[in-house]
Every structure is written in structure tokens, then in C-alpha cells.
């Protein structure tokens, strides 16, 4: 009983990580119809920023905001050049551009942060374990679940309940009509790109205490974020959340029950779901009047 509760908590922690990362990717893909394969690099960059930050003796609780800001700034720069020139082009051109960039970023990060596995120097507060039904569970993962849940709520509120969220949603539906109201949609896009990249960095900073940071992690994360987005359905907040939890639970429990076939079982589950729901779990509603 306790064992399964612990595994469930593990699955939730992993799902929250996938959700935060998937939300950034999904936002850019659905709003700007832009395939951003540098999202994994944003994640790993955020992880390294957190490792360096925590090693520097600066206040530990600022590590996550620092990673968010650093990755968001990188996203803003990438939006100015070269992304903005590729927003109107087809997906193949975007994939070539962003995949190429992600390979370059991976090499640059290996150069800057080294090839070995880097783990963060966590503060004592986050190092211990709590006992759940007599089984130990790392405090860090509990904090991760809480922080991820709060962040998801904040994001949902921002995009679903505020007028600036309405601007973004309206731009998804009909960019030209938003422009006729005097609003500069290329600035909306730049801000969304920065927030999305920032979310990548933020998930990296939150996840580094669980997954550490090492070359190649960027591609693993990117692949999983893509799974989440495809599984959940494009352009829906709920879909991405659902996709993240299905993938997170499938991977965690496949590893528990049949560790030899974990990857195979996970992909089989995704393939089956996609056969049943080709448009994703939550198909986007038609938005035109």
C-alpha cells in the first residue's frame, strides 16, 4: 500500500515536470504554429542555471526565478532573430532551423557546463525525506509537486481569466482581427515566446533536483514534451495537463512493473491512445463564429 502510494507520488512529480515543460511547447505550437525544438535546450539551460546559482551561495529560493528569467531572455532574443523570420514558413523549415539550433546549444552547454552529470547543491531544507505510511519520500519531490501545481494554476488564471490572456487567445483564433484593434501581435508573439522559453527553463530548475543535469537530457525532455503535446491535443490547456499525467503515470508504473520493457510499454500506450484519438485527448474546439 505504502509502496504504491510512493510510486503514485513519484508519478505525480514526474507528470508535473512534463506538464510544465509541455505547456511551454504547446503554447508556441498552438499560438504561433511554430515547432520549437529548442525547448529541450531551454529546459537543460534552466537546469544548469539552477546548479550554478545554488553553487554560488546566492539565496536558494531565487534559483527558479533566475532560471525562468535567463531562459525567457534567451527566448526573447531568439524571437527577434532568427525565429521571427520563420513564423510564416512551413513546419519542415522550422524543424530544420530549431533542430540545428538545439544541436548547437547542446554543444555550447557541454562546453560551458561540462560533460559530467551535475547535481545541484540543495539547501538542507529540501534534502530530507518525509515518511508516508512508513515509506520515505524525498521532500524535494513534494515541493516540486506543490510548486508545479501552483504554477499551473497561475498559468491557467493568466491565460484564461485575464485580459492579456484574452489577447493571446484571440491572437490564436484570428491574428489579423486583433491587429485591426490597434494591438501589435508581433509583440504578443515575442512575449509568448519568452514566457514559453522561460517555462522551459523553470521546469529545468525545478526538475534538476530530481533528474540532475547532463548532456543529452535536453533531447530526452524535448521528446517527452512532444509526446505530451501530441497526446493531449493542440492548443488546449487541459489536454496538455492530461497528456502529461498519462505519460508520467505510464512511464513510472511501466518502470515499476516491467522495467525491461518500460520504454516499449510507454510508447505502446501512446500509440494506442493516438489510434483511438488521432487529434489528441482534448481536440481543440472550432473557434470561428
Amino acid at each position, binding site marked *: 500500500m505504502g509502496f504504491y502510494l510512493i510510486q503514485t507520488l513519484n508519478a505525480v512529480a514526474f507528470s508535473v515536470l512534463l506538464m510544465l515543460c509541455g505547456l511551454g511547447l504547446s503554447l508556441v505550437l498552438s499560438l504561433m504554429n511554430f515547432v520549437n525544438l529548442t525547448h529541450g535546450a531551454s529546459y537543460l539551460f534552466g537546469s544548469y542555471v539552477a546548479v550554478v546559482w545554488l553553487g554560488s551561495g546566492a539565496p536558494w529560493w531565487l534559483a527558479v526565478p533566475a532560471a525562468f528569467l535567463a531562459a525567457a531572455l534567451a527566448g526573447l532574443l531568439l524571437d527577434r532573430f532568427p525565429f521571427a523570420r520563420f513564423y510564416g514558413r512551413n513546419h519542415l523549415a522550422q524543424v530544420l532551423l530549431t533542430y540545428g539550433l538545439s544541436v548547437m546549444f547542446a554543444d555550447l552547454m557541454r562546453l560551458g557546463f561540462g560533460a559530467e552529470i551535475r547535481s545541484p547543491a540543495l539547501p538542507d531544507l529540501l534534502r530530507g525525506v518525509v515518511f508516508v505510511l512508513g515509506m520515505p519520500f524525498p521532500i524535494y519531490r513534494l515541493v516540486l509537486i506543490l510548486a508545479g501545481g501552483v504554477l499551473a494554476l497561475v498559468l491557467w488564471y493568466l491565460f484564461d481569466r485575464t485580459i492579456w490572456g484574452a489577447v493571446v*487567445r484571440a491572437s490564436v483564433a*484570428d491574428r489579423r482581427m*486583433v491587429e485591426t484593434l*490597434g494591438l501589435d501581435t508581433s509583440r504578443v508573439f515575442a512575449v509568448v515566446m519568452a514566457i514559453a522559453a522561460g517555462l522551459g527553463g523553470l521546469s529545468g530548475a525545478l526538475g534538476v533536483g530530481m533528474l540532475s543535469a547532463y548532456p543529452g537530457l535536453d533531447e530526452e525532455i524535448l521528446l517527452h514534451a512532444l509526446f505530451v503535446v501530441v497526446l493531449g491535443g493542440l492548443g488546449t490547456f487541459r489536454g496538455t495537463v492530461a497528456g502529461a499525467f498519462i505519460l508520467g503515470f505510464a512511464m513510472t508504473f511501466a518502470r515499476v512493473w516491467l522495467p525491461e520493457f518500460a520504454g516499449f510499454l510507454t510508447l505502446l500506450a501512446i500509440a494506442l491512445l493516438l489510434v483511438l484519438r488521432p487529434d489528441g485527448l482534448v481536440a481543440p474546439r472550432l473557434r470561428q463564429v
Partner: protein
Amino acid sequence: MSLLCLRGVSVGHGGAPILAGIELEVGPGEVVALLGRNGVGKTTLLHALMGLGPVRRGSFLVKGQDVPTSWPPHRIARLGLALVPQGRGAFAALTVEENLRLATLAARPSAWTLARVYAEFPRLAERRRLPGAALSGGERQMLLIARALLTGADILLLDEPTEGLAPLAIEAVVVEQIRRLREDGLAVLLAEQNVAVALQVATRAVVLAEGGIVFAGSPEELANDRDLQRRHLGV
């Protein structure tokens, strides 16, 4: 001074222009009806003026300010131009209130506020929490006009506002609102298929055919010219 001035304007989608040699002036308190058969290029012209895609050549001045073709739509809109698009164009997934508030974000200073819109369009106030998709045709047209007014625009481009509306809604929403815009001193360029309604509210009429303007004059003149109406408007 005319608010809107077109000199030798041609518009099209690349290749040969759909309309050429367009000369047009609209001053405050004027409603210029843009008439012509389906497909003659009325919507293309309005979209070209707004910078929404069609290629535009020639000189286009808003309040004496030359508008370069490179300007994005939001920059043109900030000169005080607003488009009331045909049928679609309200954000279906956004609530009525969100639709309206979007227009206030980059609004020019004007007498229009959300409170005034709700006072003058009580139907919209009743439905403010509903999504745009839930509105009837007449209510949607109200929403689009109110949205254009909230941007603080003093030049309105109306694209076939009567399309798909019941006669009662045409009278209650379109005719009444355009009269009010005229009294408020706005400049209105009204693309219409419904010749009767257009002549009822317009201060001047322009007929488009064969890639250009074939008639420009008073609504009475056009109303009396049966031959022109039959040839170019199919009335």
C-alpha cells in the same frame, strides 16, 4: 479636411489589380456607400486599406497622413481607422466582455467606454458573460460595431453589415447605428450588397464595376438612374 483620401489607388492579390484608379474622399459626418456586384472587390478594397493582406498601390491618406504600404494593420488602426468585418470577426471563444475589452487596450482617447457601450447596447450588457459564438446575427453586428467604436476610431470601414440579418435586425441595428455614426461626425465607408439600405443611410454613393469606379454621386442620383442600377448592381 477629408478624413480618408484615396488617390489613384489600385488593389489586388498580386498579379493584375482587381480594382484600379480609385479616387475617394470621406469627410466627417459622411457615409459613402460602396456598391457593386458580388466579387467586384469591395472587401478586397477595405482589407487593403486596413493593411490586411491585399496589395495596395497609389496614395492613401488618413487625416492628411500618408500611409505607407509597409505599415502593419495595428499601425493603421492607431490612426483612427476601424474595420467592422463581414459576419465573422467576433472572437467566438471569448466572452462578449472580453471581445469588447480587447478593443480598449490600444484605444485612442474618445468618449466611448465600456460603461457607455453597455448603456447604449443593453443587449450586449445582458450577454456580457456569454461567448461570442452564442450571439445572434444582429447581436454580433452590434458587438462588432461597439468594438470598433471602443477603439476610439473616427473612420469606420463597414463590410456588408446587413449580410445574413433579418429585415428587423437590419433596421434596428444597421440603419439606426449608421445614422448615429453620421450624427456623431464619424466618417463611414460602407460596402454593401443591399442597395436599398445603403441608399437609405448614405450621403454619397460609389458604384464599382469592371475594375474601377463607374459612378460617383448622390444617393438620389443613383436611385433615379435605373439603367445604371440594372447594368452594374443587378437591381
